């Protein structure tokens, strides 16, 4: 275990310039980063074939530290960049890491469309129930009644369940884990990367500094303890009543379906278009481009 951690540290982190990192001590982001690295290491992916894209936020800083091809994009737009990268070079393994605000507020539209489109990209969403970087304002996953710097009287809106949203939007693979269940998270992320199609891993994480503190949830340790207590595996949850599930959430695989993948469909279109060049010419004539005889 120790040894593996050391190999991963040596092999995948950008040591020359980028440490110490910007995250607060105890932040869940580091655990997600560790899980991601263990997953890609276990899958024996080469660093050259992985692109890690992110949006803006504390979570968005992750690619800075990792020695993959990395893109720190604009707030909420990570998946749009990832889409272009993947279509331009389908050989690349494209992973997008986002915050909850990033992925489901400003980037919500991109998120559901990426799921619908089913391009072979892995989306990791670190859900810490708040806008960490900008100082703890409420996000689309801030629970009803919670305090935040913009809901000082208690939050009056209702939260998204990100994983369920992804299922409904049509993602091929959807999993949810927590930063407490670290080795489970390694596996989930690994499965998501291996899955062909758009895959989503929602990670319940702690922002004890901005969210925990304001809601008397304790520090990093207490928050992780609560993830341990409140997480119920998908299988177990099926046997529980709605009342029993109150204040709890499911972890595990919420969806794993097979449907045509856009990236491959595009390849098919390329082949077809090249084969059907004649037909295309006719269509072009119809479209008014070619007004002369071949």
């Amino acid at each position, binding site marked *: 275990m120790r040894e593996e951690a050391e190999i991963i540290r040596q092999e995948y982190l950008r040591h020359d310039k980028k440490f110490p990192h910007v995250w607060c001590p105890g932040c869940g982001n580091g655990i997600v980063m560790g899980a991601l690295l263990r997953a890609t290491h276990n899958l024996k992916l080469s660093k050259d074939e992985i692109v890690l894209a992110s949006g803006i936020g504390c979570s968005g800083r992750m690619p*800075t530290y990792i020695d993959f091809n990395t893109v720190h994009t604009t707030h909420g737009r990570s998946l*749009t960049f990832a889409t*272009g990268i993947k279509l*331009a070079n389908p050989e690349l393994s494209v992973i997008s890491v986002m915050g909850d605000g990033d992925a489901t507020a400003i980037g919500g539209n991109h998120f559901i469309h990426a799921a619908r489109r089913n391009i072979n990209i892995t989306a990791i969403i670190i859900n810490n129930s708040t806008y960490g970087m900008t100082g703890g304002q409420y996000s689309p996953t801030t629970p009803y009644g919670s305090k935040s710097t913009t809901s000082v009287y208690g939050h009056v809106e209702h939260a998204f369940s990100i994983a369920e949203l992804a299922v409904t939007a049509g993602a091929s693979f959807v999993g949810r884990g927590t930063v407490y269940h670290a080795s489970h998270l390694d596996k989930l992320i690994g499965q998501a990367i291996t899955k062909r199609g758009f895959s989503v891993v929602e990670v319940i994480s702690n922002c004890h500094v901005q969210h925990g503190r304001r809601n008397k949830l304790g520090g990093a340790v207490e928050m992780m303890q609560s993830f341990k207590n409140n997480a119920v595996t998908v299988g177990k949850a099926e046997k529980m009543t709605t009342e029993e599930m109150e204040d709890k959430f499911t972890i595990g695989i919420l969806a794993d379906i097979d449907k045509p993948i856009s990236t491959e469909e595009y390849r098919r279109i390329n082949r077809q278009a090249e084969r059907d060049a004649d037909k295309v010419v006719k269509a072009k004539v119809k*479209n008014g*481009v*070619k007004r002369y005889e071949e």
Partner: protein
Amino acid sequence: MKSEQQLPVLLQGNEAIVLGALAAGCRFFAGYPITPASEISELLSLRLPEAGGRFIQMEDEIASMGAIIGASLAGVKSMTATSGPGFSLIQENLGYACVAEVPCVIVNVMRGGPSTGLPTSPSQGDVQMARWGTHGDHPIIVLATSSVLDCFSITIKAFNLSEKYRVPVIILSDEVVAHTRESVTLPGPEEIRVIDRIAPSVPPEWYKPYAANNRGVPDMAAMGSGYRHHVTGLIHDEKGFPTQNPQEVDLFQRRLHDKISKGFNEIQVSKSIMMEDAEVCVIAYGSVARSAMRAVKEARAKGIKAGLLQLITLFPFPRQIVDSALRQCRVAVVPEMNMGQICREVARVNRSETRIVKHNRIDGQLITPEEILKYLVSV
């Protein structure tokens, strides 16, 4: 199969942009439907696949712009096309392309604004927005098309400049240029010069993705080519990592501007028509330049020494070219389908006694040759 080029073809401006893009090596397009730019998307959805490229319709223009930046980072020449409302949405990621120095081409087929405005009427209302639309000081190249043939050659030029200087290039077309059909003979492949970004030649461990060289334009490695590096919209050092060090920030910001200044001579393109002995001139661009040309010819027929300076590069503003036209002429007429967005640039560079006369139409109608001729006759 004969090439489309070299034979007379009947094309509209939007189609010529597509053919220009393909000839320039564009192999990725992301867009969102909008009048009067949609034909560009439609035709590329047909043509890109057979060229081995990819077309995608995104959920909005913010996403289109993100996708073309992504594709370009992966080494593929990319373009999007839109009109006013969509042009507003691309501005966020356009700034990213400026700061991360990602080559890409953005076509804005201008229509009447503000807001949803006049969807099917021509306009030149987005000229200053093309220059300053995204926040922060940033260099950018803006080219204007006035004819179908222009649409073809300017699109190629746009890709070439974008690749060479690692800067987004905006093509401003308008509803009239986009939809007018003309019979044109396009240059053959051997007459077309295509420029590609320069890939690094050093070993990957030496590669500094944002290091200044004598051109001021860093070599660009495609993602997945073995040159792992970091790309960010934050101001970065020469390795691409965020920095707030004032010296590094200053160095970076100035290099962004300087790389464009260094290329002024090549970037600034214009056409001087009957300018040799002109005493009055029209300074125009886009479809208005067509009317201006006609007006100048008619003025000449009346014995008036008129000339036309047609601007193709709008930004960086061709200060020297305009300045010398102004020094030569008593009067310069600047007709525009806006309230004077280029006229203010002309006035800014005017260091002589030349009178600058503006003529503006913002009713969604074309400026006619007669309107311009009236000025040429009366001044």
